[in-house]
């Protein structure tokens, strides 16, 4: 019952405000009348009684205000009032409002877009239940903190650890030839081999059918079953629920579909969404490494291992346990496991160790935050000058009995509305930036496997936007609100120009301008550094020819060729192409330079090289090529010879190394004629017959060791055919197709493109996207800083109009006025530039260490950025200053 009464009052207060208020007004007035009457009866005169009664009451409006505050729902009511009032006053100054909203939107948009990258690359949890207790188990070596395990090692880890509720393993996503039925040319899909407990340990329930059973992963080759990825199921089977039980062909082998993974589980990878999952036991259909036995060889390391930590197990215990196990491996299998350790990583550690892309994300996010900072200072500056214009209004409100807190709340409500509008617009901008990234998908990932830009506006990023908006509301709004409610009432009401030019008050605004100039200088520096580092790379060049080349990749495993058939196919294909008119030279290579796939590694011991005591061998990146490679790619042989047709499988094994490699291991002497031994010092000897020029292999970064092996002695299934054409390379596409069809009509041409086009996308347009992004942020920062400086000087001019008028009337020259007004801007920009330089140096160091792996200071970048920023900033101050010079004394003195 009392609750009902209360609810009724609440509703009454909310909806019949006018009636409730009128009633209150009458009541208080009646009270006043009664008081007067009482005093009169006490025997004093009417006028005196009135005065006494008013004193006792203490102000009709104040009493009413106190009652209002104590009412049920008072908070809500005043909030609604604030909102309505704030909205009205913002609409009155719609130009300013629009500017503030756009400014905030740019800041929030940039930050949210860049955060979405950092989130996708580092923080986004695995799409499984309780993702935080999924950890990665990895091998460690001298050269790498994160190494795969072999099948045998995985089995041992799985069976001999106690810290986990299950240990899973999966191989990298790889190209799989898929066809729905026999007789259809297979297409390439992304397949992933997973252990039988994969879905069960991760807690992923298939949306259709079932996951793997433990027994389906026990006998090699017995259970040809496959679970489909959700996107693949939708595209290839039109989301047909009857797909379970159907048979499809993978690399020519029939597999039975047993389930479809749910939409909530696109896989564990950051960039790739596998189309198909198959059990590890079917490895013989997919395995890439022909000379190794996946199930037996302990050094055939192809598996990522992850595990679900038991709720009561500690990470430290798990680490100790695994380290001990790794020691055991080293002891029991010294031949294949020398100086290998093992480590357990959390998701964060795994993501930051696996690849380096996240560093770009972090640098971007720092820059995005810098833009937001500039935006916030700008908005704070604008609100400050607005607060000054409203000082009188606020003084009146304070005099009429408004509490200071209440006014601060009102002003903060205003900035909150601004921030929310800015936040919404910012989300739109962030969304736009991410969409723009998606439109560059094909440039960023030139591969036939299913990959996706993982950046997205999900709940986490949206939450961040909201948080940023609220935070920026307080950052921008609090200082002006505090300041404008701290006015001296008497002065404020008396004088027309409330703002006594106190030093303290302007100090805040000066700080803002300094911060803006500094931050935007930092942003500009960053974008310049990136652009110039990139330009530098392009100038240095790659060291090989890119034009007039056609590339086509093949993988005869897709149609079940064995090793002999595969080599036969490549030999015949190269022969046919050499005879084709328009073809100048023909090459086969396992990987193309600057390609998307990583090069293989080769483990070796150089003959005659004193090994450091703690290591048994070295590793280097390598490529498998045929005898036409160096000529076709235009890579010079510095010493010795290129591969010849006589380097057959039966001939002594040979290799060619690059100049970097030769200098690394034989610094004084000649590497030609020296030998390396594969795997370890007892391994097969390989003679170095030539030294090739060091070129760019994977990225534009520093040169690295590189080894070439002849295809005939190091057979590889998946190769790329490179054709040097005399004319347009694309005219050779049809001849290649014809040649392949005459050899085997079932073999698909995989990735066919003019190499130059591929290279431009991969090495030029991709980085250009990053530079565009940073450049945009730099420009936005600069624009905002210019607007801020302009605002400050214009504000000063308007505040000092009268003073300047008097000065001009007294005979001050224009130059004097200009100096007076600009002088301060000059000092502020100077300080800001100095600070910005320091921040720029710091950022350069950070970028060098994170991205470019280089030291040194790019003087030219500073020589360009600093003066141009200075000039632009001074221009921003000059425009309002010139207006100050034109102030007509008569008008200025009449002002107000």
């Amino acid at each position, binding site marked *: 019952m*009392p609750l009902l*009464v*209360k609810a009724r009052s609440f509703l009454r207060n909310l909806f019949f405000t006018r009636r409730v208020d009128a009633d209150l007004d009458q*009541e208080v007035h009646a009270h006043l009348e*009664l008081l007067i009457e009482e005093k009169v009866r006490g025997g004093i005169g009417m006028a005196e009684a009135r005065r006494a009664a008013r004193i006792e009451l203490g102000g009709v409006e104040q*009493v009413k205000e106190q009652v209002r505050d*104590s009412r049920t729902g008072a908070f809500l009511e005043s909030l609604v009032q604030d909102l309505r009032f704030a909205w009205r006053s913002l609409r009155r100054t719609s130009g300013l409002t629009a500017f503030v909203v756009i400014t905030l939107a740019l800041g929030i948009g940039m930050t949210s877009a860049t955060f979405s990258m950092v989130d996708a690359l580092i923080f986004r949890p695995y799409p499984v239940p309780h993702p935080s207790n999924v950890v990665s188990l990895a091998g460690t070596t001298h050269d790498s903190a994160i190494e795969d395990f072999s099948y045998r090692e995985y089995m041992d880890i799985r069976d001999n650890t106690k810290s986990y509720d299950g240990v899973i393993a999966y191989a990298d996503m790889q190209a799989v030839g898929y066809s729905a039925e026999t007789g259809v040319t297979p297409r390439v899909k992304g397949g992933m081999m997973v252990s039988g407990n994969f879905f069960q340990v991760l807690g992923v329930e298939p949306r259709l059918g079932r996951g793997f059973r433990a027994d389906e992963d026990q006998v090699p080759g017995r259970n040809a079953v496959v679970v489909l990825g959700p996107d693949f199921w939708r595209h290839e089977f039109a989301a047909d629920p009857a797909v379970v039980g159907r048979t499809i062909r993978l690399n020519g082998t029939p597999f039975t579909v047993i389930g479809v993974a749910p939409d909530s589980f696109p896989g564990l990878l950051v960039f790739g969404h596998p189309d198909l999952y198959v059990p590890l036991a079917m490895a013989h259909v997919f395995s890439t490494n022909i000379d190794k036995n996946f199930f037996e060889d302990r050094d055939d390391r192809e598996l990522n291992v992850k595990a679900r930590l038991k709720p009561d197990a500690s990470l430290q215990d798990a680490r100790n346990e695994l380290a001990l196990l790794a020691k055991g491996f080293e002891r029991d299998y010294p031949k294949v496991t020398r100086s290998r350790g093992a480590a357990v990583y959390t998701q964060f550690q795994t993501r930051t160790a696996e690849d380096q892309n996240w560093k770009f994300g972090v640098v971007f996010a720092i820059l995005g935050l810098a833009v937001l900072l500039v935006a916030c200072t700008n908005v704070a500056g604008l609100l400050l000058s607005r607060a000054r214009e409203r000082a009188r209004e606020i003084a009146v409100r304070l005099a009429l009995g408004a509490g200071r807190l209440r006014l601060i709340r009102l002003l903060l409500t205003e900035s909150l509305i601004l921030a929310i509008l800015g936040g919404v617009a910012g989300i739109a901008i962030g969304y736009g930036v991410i969409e723009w990234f998606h439109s560059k998908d094909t440039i960023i990932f030139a591969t036939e496997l299913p990959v996706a830009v993982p950046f997205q506006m999900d709940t986490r990023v949206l939450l961040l936007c909201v948080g940023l908006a609220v935070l920026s509301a307080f950052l921008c709004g609090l200082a002006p609100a505090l300041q404008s409610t701290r006015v001296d009432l008497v002065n404020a009401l008396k004088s027309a120009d409330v703002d006594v030019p106190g030093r303290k008050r302007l100090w805040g605004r000066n700080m803002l301008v300094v911060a803006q100039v500094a931050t935007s200088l930092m942003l500009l520096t960053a974008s310049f550094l990136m652009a110039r580092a990139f330009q530098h790379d392009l100038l240095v060049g790659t060291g090989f020819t890119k034009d007039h080349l056609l590339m086509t990749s093949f993988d005869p495993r897709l149609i079940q060729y064995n090793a002999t058939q595969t080599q036969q196919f490549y030999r015949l294909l190269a022969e046919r192409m050499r005879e084709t008119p328009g073809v100048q030279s023909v090459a086969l290579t396992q990987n193309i330079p600057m390609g998307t796939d990583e090069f293989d590694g080769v483990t070796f011991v150089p003959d005659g090289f004193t090994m450091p005591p703690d290591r048994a061998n070295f590793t280097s990146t390598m490529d498998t090529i045929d005898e036409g490679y160096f000529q076709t790619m235009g890579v010079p042989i510095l010493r010795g010879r290129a591969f010849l047709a006589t380097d057959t499988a039966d001939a002594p094994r040979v290799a060619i190394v690059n100049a970097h490699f030769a200098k690394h291991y034989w610094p004084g002497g000649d590497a030609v004629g020296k030998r390396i031994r594969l795997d370890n010092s007892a391994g097969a000897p390989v003679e170095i017959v030539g030294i090739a020029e060091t070129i760019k292999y994977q990225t534009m970064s520093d040169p690295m060791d590189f080894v070439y092996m002849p295809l005939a002695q190091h057979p590889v299934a998946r190769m790329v055919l490179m054709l040097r054409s005399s004319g347009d390379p694309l005219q050779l596409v049809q001849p290649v197709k014809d040649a392949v069809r005459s050899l085997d009509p079932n073999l698909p041409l995989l990735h066919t493109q003019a190499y130059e086009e591929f290279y431009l996308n991969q090495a030029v347009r991709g980085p250009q996207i990053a530079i565009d992004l940073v450049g945009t942020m730099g420009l936005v920062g600069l624009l905002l800083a210019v607007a801020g400086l302009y605002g400050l000087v214009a504000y000063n001019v308007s505040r000092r109009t009268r003073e300047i008028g008097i000065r001009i009337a007294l005979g001050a020259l224009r130059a004097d006025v200009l100096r007076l007004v600009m002088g301060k801007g000059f000092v502020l920009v100077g300080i800001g530039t100095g600070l910005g330089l320091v921040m720029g140096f710091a950022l350069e160091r950070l970028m060098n260490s994170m991205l470019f792996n280089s030291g040194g200071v790019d003087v030219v970048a500073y020589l360009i950025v600093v003066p141009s920023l200075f000039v632009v900033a001074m221009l921003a101050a000059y425009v309002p200053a010139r207006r100050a010079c034109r102030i007509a004394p008569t008008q200025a003195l009449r002002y107000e």
Partner: protein
Amino acid sequence: MHGLGISRRIQQITGGTFVVKPGSLFPALHRMEEEGWITAFWGESENNRRAKYYRMSKAGQKQLEAETKRWSRISLAIGQALEAS
């Protein structure tokens, strides 16, 4: 009883110890009304002036009893505590 009456009555009973000013009186009255402990109505004062009158409701009676009990418990306790020291 109207607001001024209540205020004067408290002053009188407590021998001038408690003087309830309008700034405290009206918020308190309105809160109690919203809680449903008192009801308000417009009436005529002894000198035929319109004034807002307040009357205790049943719920108010109950609340008063409860508060009185609570108060006597507290004052007893405080009294004992003071005596003991």
